[in-house]
Structures are given as structure tokens and as C-alpha cells.
């Protein structure tokens, strides 16, 4: 986790330095704010990863001498196939189209989003196949 943390930290600190230089040199607030926000986007994940790095033992994927046997067990639960991402995508598409063609498509779109999001959540809680 150390390298992951340092990648984000490095980007955050670098952009923070650029922000300070830009702010005092250009004296332009819009660009400085965007750069400051970008520095935050680097530093926030860095804080999260750094917090976990201190509290975790090195994982097998962080250890150069680790063997496959050291990480035996379930990697995770992966759905094989499910219709709900497709339904959710179509719902988002119809909802977005309402910005162009009026609210009628949003009625169907939002209904599909609610149905698909609820069903996908229940599906993952059940843990069963689709």
C-alpha cells in the first residue's frame, strides 16, 4: 500500500506547489482554485491510503517474496451475468434525454433507474446468481 499512497501523495504535493507558484505569480483566482481542487483530489486519496498503510500488515501483493499459496481463499464475489447494469444504463439514457426532449422520457428513465438500482442491491445482498 506504500507505493499507492506515495503515488497520490506525490501528485497532490506537486500540484499544491504549482498552485502556490501560480497564485502568487499570476494573481488569478479561477485557475488557482482549480489547481487547489486538483491538489485536494491527490491528497484526499493519499490520506485514505496512508491511514490504511499504517494499520495494515503488508499484503501478499506488496511482498516481493510472496507465493501464490499465501493468499489462498476467496478473492471476492463476482457476478457472472446480470441484466441490471443494462437496465440502469438505459434508465440513465432516457433520463438524460429528457434534458433535450422534455420530461416524458424521464418518467420511464427514473423508474428504470430505481428498479435496477434496487434490484442490483438486493441481488448482491442475496449473493445468488441471476
Amino acid at each position, binding site marked *: 500500500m506504500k507505493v499507492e499512497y506515495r503515488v497520490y501523495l*506525490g501528485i497532490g504535493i506537486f500540484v499544491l506547489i504549482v498552485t502556490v507558484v501560480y497564485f502568487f505569480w*499570476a494573481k488569478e483566482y479561477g485557475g488557482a482554485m482549480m489547481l487547489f481542487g486538483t491538489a485536494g483530489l491527490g491528497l484526499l486519496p493519499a490520506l485514505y491510503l496512508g491511514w490504511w498503510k499504517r494499520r495494515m500488515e503488508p499484503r501478499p501483493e*506488496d511482498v516481493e517474496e510472496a507465493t501464490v499459496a499465501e493468499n489462498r481463499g476467496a478473492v471476492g464475489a463476482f457476478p457472472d451475468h446480470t441484466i441490471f447494469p443494462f437496465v440502469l444504463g438505459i434508465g440513465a439514457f432516457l433520463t438524460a434525454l429528457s434534458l433535450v426532449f422534455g420530461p416524458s422520457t424521464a418518467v420511464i428513465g427514473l423508474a428504470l433507474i430505481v428498479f435496477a438500482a434496487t434490484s442490483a442491491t438486493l441481488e448482491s445482498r442475496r449473493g445468488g446468481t441471476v
Partner: protein
Amino acid sequence: MTIAEERSELAHEPEADAQHGPTGIYKWLTSTDHKVIGKNYMYTSLVFLMIAGAMAMIIRAQLVQPNGHIVSQQMYNELFTIHGSMMLYLFAGPFAFGGFANFILPLQIGAPDMAFPRLNALSYWLYLTGGTTMLMGFFVNGGAAAFGWVSYAPLSSYTYSPGPGPDLWIVAIILTGFSGIFTAVNLVTTAFYLRAPGMTMFRMPIFTWNMVVTGILILIAFPILTAAMVMLYADRHLGTHFFTVAGGGSPVMWQNLFWFFGHPEVYILALPYFGIASEIFPVFAKKPIFGYKGLVFATLAIAGLSTGVWAHHMYTTGTVLLPFFAALSLLIAVPTGIKVFTWIGTLWGGNLQFRVPLLFALGFLVTFTMGGFSGVMLASPPFDFAVHDTYFVVAHFHQVLAGTAIFAGFAGFYYWYPKLTGRMMREGLGKLQFWIAFIAFNMTFIPQYLAGLRGMPRRIPVYLVSDHVTFLNQVSSVGAFLTGFSFLIWLLNLWISWRRPIPAGDNPWDGHTLEWATSSPPPHHNFTSLPPIRSQRPVWDKNHPEYADYTTDHDGTPKKEVEPR
């Protein structure tokens, strides 16, 4: 739902991917397998490439003669807008970042799938519907968006661009933007949390590293684009005045927001293709990559610097700090140069095998370097003032972006096609496609540099005989038509491979990285066994123990990684 057993070292009979779960259209609609989604992305984005390429052919046909009349001026504006938007938002990024990354990244790190398979599937559907939305613009009253892929204010306001076409364009960008953000979250999380034991960050293949950095850049840049699109929509329909002077807004603010996304976007498009080339050069030079860590840090440096150069697209507005942006823009040439030298270093002294993937990768190297040099020229404000908004800029970004996406993209396609399908493509047709594409591509864009230096502005549907750019445009158009023809050869190659398959085997190129440790195509959840991961080239180590990148104990146990020879 499958609980993936952790990376068994025991070999089983591979369960063919096609035999698992539903088949046909229902498989396509419901699959959450990263391999299926990756292929969906790849083939969809190639269809978008063909559509955008057809638009380019019409544009070049219009410019063959002075005062061309192939299409109306309004249609010309719509064509170059949607051509640019499709190439950038729907082909170049999704082909590599949605297609190759989805298929290859989990395989390269020994993972059974992406970290969030449902989110991955949703990303694809948002991408497909976003692309469809963009094309719908041609079928509504007033036509498609016609303000260029950068949609500058106030041209993109409702006053100057009325009708539903521009709104469809905005909605399309928002949908594909969310698709990109979801894919980025997925790829970064997968690379951070699903690596196989022993696959440390500094053993990840360069392709995977580049995808991680691209993912981080997407998470920085795409939310700003989405926010800017919402503001633009609000200006058009909700009475706000973010970008209209009359209401106290600022059109230049649009440029700042757009390019704060737009310049990292250039590297979001380029870095994945750099990763593809970085995989191909060592395999076909029979050497390890030269300067692995240098490449990784150069990629990170490019990512960091790319966030601070947005206003080099805005020199001529007169509102930006020229020395700051010129300095940072020139600085980007340093890590980019490191990459080019690293690739040359990898090839240097290698046992080069000029197969089709290497030819396309070399084509990328040449066109990208050429386009990169003109980019360094454009980073200088006095030069940019002279050629801003001319065909010089068009030639520059086509060489850098289209050259990268097409040559490195086809390099990757030929390289990984055996893994995707278990089949080989025909070598002779591939070489023919490469040579026609390489000559024709440069024939298209080198004359455009010269036309730009003679003052030919971009985005114009007509020019005069007295502009002295007729011959240059004719050469450029012939080059464009030949480039289009080269894609037909690729389609023929694909068709022959489909009708008369040549089995590829698991590792036809003697590849180095983990995707070549599994069957072609890979089984459900990717691996039935994994080799020990003791270096950046675990499959090479396994297949060539006498040249392995690590030392062993007297009993043959892997002991310590050594500097690559």
C-alpha cells in the same frame, strides 16, 4: 455469482469462456466479465472510428478543390464537430481505456475480474448510449452540434447554436463522462487491490502502470468537464450567465474550464497507447524494457505537469500568464523525451522481429515524435501567435493524437488479438495495411503543416485559388483517402481471420507478462494456474529459466530479483 477461488497453482482443464453462462445477445446484454466488456468497448469504438473516419473523408473531399461544394457550410461545421468529438470522446479514449484496459489489465496483474463488475458493465452502457446520443443530432431539426469539439462560448450559446442538436451533444458528453469516471474508479481500484501475490507495484507491467496513471488523470479532469457541461446547459436553458458577457459572465471562463479538462485529456488519450507500445517493444526486441522505473516516473511526471498547462491553448486570448504556461508546457517535453529514449533504448541492440505489432509500434514512435516536436514549437507563445487556429495546429494534434491512437492502437490490436480470440491475423495483410497507412497518414498531415504556415485557417469549408494551398490540400486529401483504404484491408484481415481461423496458441509472441500465462481466449475468471511472480517478466522467467530476471537458491527456489540484462 461466483466466489473466485484464489489463483490456484494446480492446473485444470481450462473452461472456455464461451461455454460459461448465457450465450448470444443475452450474454452481450448481461455479462459482467471484463473480457466481454473489453471486447464490447473495442468493437464499439472501432465502429465509431469508422463513422468518424467517413466524416473525415467527406471533409477532405470538400477541400480537394477551392470553393468546394460537396456539402453545405452548415453540414461541414457539423461534420468536423462530430468527427472531432467522436474521435476524442468515443474512439481514442474508450478504445484503449475501455477496451484494452478492461481486457488486459486484470490479466496482467493476475486478477479474476475487475473490482466492480456491475459498475464496469454500467460504464459500457453509458458509453454506448452516449455515443448514440451524439449521432442522434444528425436526425433532429437544425442538425447536430456545429461549434467544434471544444464548444467555445458564446458560439455554443442558444443564440448562436439553437435547436436540440447541441443539447444532444452536451448530454452525450455527460453520459460518456460518467462512463469514463466509473471505468477509472474500477481500473485504479483493481490495480491497487486485486494484484496477485508477488505482483508488487514496481513489478506491474508498464501498460498497467499507464492505465493507473490515466485513471487518476480521468478522476481529476472528467468531473470538471461534466460540471462545465452542466453550466453550459444551464446557460442555454435555465437563464444563467456563466459564459455570457451580457449577464456578467465570461466566455474565457469556458475556455479555462474546458482546457483544464482538455489538456489532461490529451494525456488521457496518449498514455494508454504509450503503455501499449511499452509492452510491444521489449517482446519483439527479445529484451526487458530499458529503464522501467524511468518510464513509470516519466508517466507520473507527465500526469502532474499536464494539470498545469491548460492555458497554452489560450495564449491568444491575452488573459493568461504566458511565461508560466510556456515553461510548464516545455517541461512536459522532458518526461516525454525520457519515454522516447527509453523505447529506443529497448530496441537498441535487440533481436528485432519485424512482425506487424512492432511495425505499427514503430509507426507510432515516428509519427508521435514528429507531432511532439511541433508541439514543442507551439508551446512557445510567439510561434503560437503566428499559427494559432491554422492547419499547423490541425496537423500537430492529428500526428500526436490520431497517429498515436491509430498506430499504437492497431499495434495493440494485432498484438493482443490472439489473446482476445485464440486466432492469428494474417501477417501479409497486416504489413500491407501498415505500409499504406504509414505513408498515407503522413501524406495527409505533413502538407497540412505547410498549409498552416501559409496561413490557411482551420474549420473553413472553402479556400481561394489565390491562397496557394490547393496542391497541398489535394495531396492531403489523397493521403486521407488512402488512409481510409488501409482500414478496409484491416477489415478484410479480420474477416479472413473469422472465416478461416489460424489457431494462435497461448503465447504466440513469446510474451513476457501474465496475460500470456493463460489460455487464448482466457477461461472464466482468467487463470487456472499462475507462475511465480519474481520479476517484471514472470512468463519470460518461466519459459526461459536460463535467462530469468532473478537468481535462485541451489534448489531452484526463486531468491532475488536482478537487474535486467
